[in-house]
């Protein structure tokens, strides 16, 4: 767990922990809003190829944590190293370069509701990759939509889709950029158990096909169990415990216990 503590000057850096390559390294991350300390010295590693689940009560700063990772929120202190990039210190161009390699699935899907599904998926390709070739665009879009099982919805508007479908399209929109890391913010929140299970299966199949390393934020235990190789708990602004689902469910901490015996 203690691969890198020292902050070095170089922006490109890869850490290793007992032979496991760490793609995300977070050290002593702090963030407060006003006088409310949300994150207090958070330390976290994401290793290559794993699905890491972060559980925790709502309002503990799980979303804040992953938003810090992609530069949407600027932390007050601490280090975040993702794929060798020192996130809080990147300039605009470097940040963009990193963002293309990190997929972010938002809690509310965040589909652009003035655009069709096709236009939603095209948006990053056209504006980022400067890709305008009709056939090529179409192939990429269909491939991404087939990955999430929704090729038939290509010409619909987000308002015509169900919650589960929106989640899938949101994931497809990030997959189209072939990310190395996926961040899922409460992928199953607000979905029925059957749809939730389908999303969990999708998360696992995304890893298989795209060889992504993922962080999955959730307070849904089924989701944690189905997708997580390793779980950590974020409580009171810190990563408190770590382990497999089975280990976590036997932890003797009152807060964690409360979480597992709901």
């Amino acid at each position, binding site marked *: 767990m203690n691969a890198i503590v020292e902050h070095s000057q170089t922006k490109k850096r890869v850490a290793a922990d007992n032979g496991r390559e760490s793609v995300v390294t977070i050290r002593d991350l702090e963030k407060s809003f006003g006088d409310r300390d949300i994150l207090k010295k958070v330390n976290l590693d994401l290793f290559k190829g794993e699905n890491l689940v972060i559980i925790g009560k709502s309002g503990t700063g799980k979303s804040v944590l992953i938003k810090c990772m992609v530069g*949407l929120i600027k932390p007050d202190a601490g280090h975040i190293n993702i794929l060798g990039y020192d996130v809080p210190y990147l300039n605009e161009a470097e940040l963009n370069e990193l*963002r293309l390699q990190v997929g972010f699935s938002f809690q509310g899907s965040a589909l652009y509701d003035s655009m069709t599904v096709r236009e939603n998926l095209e948006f990053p390709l056209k504006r*980022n990759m400067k890709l305008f070739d009709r056939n090529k665009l179409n192939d990429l879009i269909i491939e991404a939509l087939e990955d999430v099982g929704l090729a038939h919805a290509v010409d619909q508007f987000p308002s015509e889709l169900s919650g589960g479908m929106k989640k899938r399209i949101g994931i497809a929109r990030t997959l189209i950029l072939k990310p190395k890391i996926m961040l899922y913010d409460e992928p199953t929140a607000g979905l029925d158990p059957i749809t939730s299970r389908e999303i969990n299966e999708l998360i696992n199949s995304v890893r298989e096909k795209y060889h992504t390393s993922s962080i999955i934020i959730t307070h849904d235990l089924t989701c944690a169990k189905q997708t997580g190789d390793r779980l950590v708990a974020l409580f009171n602004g810190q990563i408190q415990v770590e382990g497999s689902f089975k280990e976590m469910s036997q932890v003797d901490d009152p807060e964690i216990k409360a979480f597992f015996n709901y």
Partner: protein
Amino acid sequence: MKKFLIQLAAISRFVGDTIRYVFKGPFEFRELTRQCYLIGYRSFFLIGFTSFIAGIVFTRQSRPSLASFGAESWLPSLVSQAVVRSLGPLITALICAGKLGSNIGAELGSMRVSEQIDAMEVSGTRPFSYLVVTRVIAATMMLPILVMYADTIALLGSYMMVNMINKSSFQLFVNEVAVSVTYLDIFSSLVKSAIFGFAIGIVGCYAGYNTSGGTTGVGRAANTAVVVSMVFIFVIDLVSLQFINLFRTT
């Protein structure tokens, strides 16, 4: 007071960013044309309707006072100066503040609270040029065009009123208008309108882009956009009046 200054600094930075990105690019030609089209299309009918009525009413109400001096024949000249210098730009700007301001505020506001702007940002697509810069440029370009349109319709309304009271030829009316409206009048009114458009665009975008607090926040953003841009419009109108008067010879 401190809060006000912080707000002011934030707005200045927003304006600075907007202007910087206008020159820096990327230039969003397609989105810009779409926004221009939407602005024109959305307010075309309402501006035409209100300008027409304003032309009629203003003419009808000015007539008695002119008639009491025996100066009824000055009516076209008075009306056309009033319309071009002040009435046309003001009506257009206020309607756009209402329609466009609330529209931009609410649209960007809901994109902000539903994390669509964040989503654009994390896919590396620089939402600022796409969303803000296009809207501000579109408003700045479209306002002068809409003002010319409003002026024309208002003068048509005015002619109709003049003609109803005592038959007069359209040709004569147009001549009188052409004589009394100067190039300075037209030029300054168009520049003023462009500034109105810029203000409406900036205020709407600022309110929308910085929305927080869910659905209520969106309502608040739309409201702020309308109220603040209306206040700006009157202030700009007053300042530009003083400024333009420096150039008038008569």
